[in-house]
């Protein structure tokens, strides 16, 4: 036991000596929380719009003023002809154009009917869709103001209640996601590479001939990353509570317990990769391509899993981050207890045991 503690201490010093990597390891969660919390938003606003006003009458002017006042649009400039409009789209300067035909106000007054054309840069279909809706709403608003307010009979009034996140903030969705991402990254990549490194430089052989069980050598390499990761969990939670004002609604203790389980899962994945590869470059590319992207994609915090084709939906079940994301969401945001997440916990534990057993077996074969 004393030997093991000494080994862990040695590994710990190894990790602590590399200041540059440490800085990145601790800086990563902070940067991610800041980027996700403040920079990234699925909301569309400040989209640049161009006005092609052939009418130049009070009605068109008033609509343009309304557009300028909305936070969705920034009226970039007005153009005189279609060529200029097309050029602005091709230069990528604008997302949308609104065209008023000549005599807009006159037809509205006399024929009770007028037309506007809305052109969207649909190379980004989602934004185009949303912007068209916003712009239509602004025009409709103007139109409704023109007609008298009618009180309609037989009204059904839907009362909408937003559960868990009444202000529709992004944080409740991504904080659990960032936790899964950062833990995955630190544990899988760091363990995989640090073990492969010993293989590549030949120092692993030295360790293995020591009177120390090989399995303990591997475990002692994983322990420092377990501790580092727990520090990261704590810093993410602190940032979440104090910077993003997103408290932990459930038990903090349970959250840490589940985090330890997930960290162990990730460490096992790292060990698995290191057993199967011989060079740091390959280990890195596999953890990066094979682990990082699936974690981002299939954990469900960036893209809804139910939109994916069935094979991908099934695949998402073997991605550990998906289950951890569900667990953190349940404890942290919904404030549920263990009885709500025992199934997810069991699946994570299962993945860990299976991977651990496979690694152990491969490891022995390699030694002989």
């Amino acid at each position: 036991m004393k030997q093991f503690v000494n080994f862990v201490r040695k590994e710990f010093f190894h990790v602590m000596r590399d200041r540059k990597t440490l800085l990145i390891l601790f800086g990563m969660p902070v940067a991610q929380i800041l980027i996700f919390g403040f920079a990234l938003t699925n909301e569309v606003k400040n989209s640049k719009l161009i006005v092609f006003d052939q009418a130049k009458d009070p009605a068109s002017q008033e609509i343009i003023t309304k557009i300028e006042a909305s936070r969705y649009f920034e009226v970039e400039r007005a153009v005189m002809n279609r060529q200029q409009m097309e050029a602005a789209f091709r230069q990528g300067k604008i997302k949308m154009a609104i065209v008023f035909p000549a005599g807009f106000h006159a037809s509205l007054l006399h024929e009770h009917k007028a037309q506007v054309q809305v052109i969207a840069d649909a190379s980004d279909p989602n934004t185009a869709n949303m912007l068209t809706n916003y712009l239509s709403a602004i025009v409709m608003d103007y139109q409704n103001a023109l007609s008298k307010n009618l009180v309609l009979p037989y009204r059904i009034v839907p009362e909408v209640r937003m559960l868990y996140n009444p202000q529709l903030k992004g944080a409740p969705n991504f904080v659990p996601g960032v936790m899964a991402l950062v833990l995955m990254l630190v544990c899988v990549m760091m363990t995989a590479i640090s073990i492969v490194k010993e293989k590549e430089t030949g120092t692993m052989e030295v360790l293995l001939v020591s009177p120390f069980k090989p399995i303990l050598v591997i475990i002692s390499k994983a322990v420092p990353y377990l501790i580092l990761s727990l520090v990261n969990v704590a810093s993410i939670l602190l940032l979440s509570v104090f910077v993003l004002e997103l408290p932990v609604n459930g038990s903090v203790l349970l959250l840490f317990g589940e985090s330890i389980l997930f960290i162990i899962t990730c460490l096992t994945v790292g060990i698995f990769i290191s057993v199967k590869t011989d060079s740091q470059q390959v280990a890195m590319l596999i953890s990066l391509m094979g682990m990082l992207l699936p974690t981002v994609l299939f954990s469900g915090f960036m893209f809804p899993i139910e939109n994916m084709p069935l094979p991908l939906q099934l695949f998402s079940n073997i991605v550990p981050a998906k289950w951890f994301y569900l667990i953190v969401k349940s404890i942290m945001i919904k404030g549920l207890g263990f009885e709500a997440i025992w199934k997810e916990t069991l699946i994570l534990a299962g993945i860990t045991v299976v991977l651990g057993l496979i690694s152990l077996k491969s490891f022995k074969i390699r030694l002989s």
Partner: protein
Amino acid sequence: MRTIRFLLQKEFRQIFRNRAILLLIGVMPVMQLLILPLAANYEVKNINLSVVDHDHSSYAQKLIAKVTASGYFKLRGYGASFKEELKKIESDRSDLILEIPEGFERKLIREDQQQLFIAVNAINGVKANLGGAYLTSIIKDFNDEIRIGLLPTARFNPGPVIEITASNWYNPLMEYRFYMVPGILAILVTMIGGFLSALNIVKEKEFGTIEQINVTPIKKHHFILGKLIPFWVLGNIVFSLGLLVAWLVYGIIPVGSLFVLYGFLAVYLLAILGFGLLISTFCDTQQQAMFIMFFFMMVFILMGGLFTSIDSMPDWAKLVSSFNPVSYLIEVMRMVILKGSSWKDVWPQFGIIALFAVLLNTYAIINYKKTS
């Protein structure tokens, strides 16, 4: 010139000797281009709906039928109590509860106004917002139908009407993958170029082979060029492979000229490889280089406008994005491939990337020390 030729020979041999890396370079991007556009879909559909119907009237039945026929919602539960359906939201089996109060139909006709209750799982704000909006608009349609049924002669449009014709340029079928594929390809080229170059010099440092090169009369810039060119070639190959997949699998044929695309890429690759080399001159181990590169890549990709628009970011984030080479490549690829933008349209981005390329490579050459 001869020195560079020999250096290139050495580098290419080293690359081709490592089968695993070659396989990863060849197969990974193709796989990702095949899978990512399928998975990265923001469209909100298949919203799971629970209904709590206390009324059981014909109106309630009609409303439920109308909601489920809309194509946005999947009926996941039809329960007797709100509590029971809330359990389904807690376990993520349902996203939304529609509660129809007792006496809904009777009171609507007698009292002129009646409420419906909607509870939405709002952890994912965007989905909640859209789901709630779809449902309220369906209820509004249903309301109008009832009203027309009850008041057959009424006119609801006494005011002037503005007709809005909406056109969707550059992607009239609104295919989301047309937008995603060029962006993903930009990321893949960046990742491969950036990581391979960042790891390369460090690897020689770690193994000590760099000492051997340092004692030869090879000039600094020769050495850097010898490292740069092979990855530049690889970057172009990956890019071409990606364009091929985009065409064969997704039917995406660049509207603009390939000449503009490759011209921009040529300079962009120099910039990103220069960045990788710069990082490798700062680091002592591959692990370090990888993590620092990873940190920057993460910021570059998240803030590059691949998934969320840069326009919507706060000003400080826009400023950060203006130093992000990836955002320029993503923008230009989408412009040229989807809109047919020409040199004239992309020259501002081209100028900035050229500047990045010069600065980063100069810094890398200065920072590479021949003596340790």
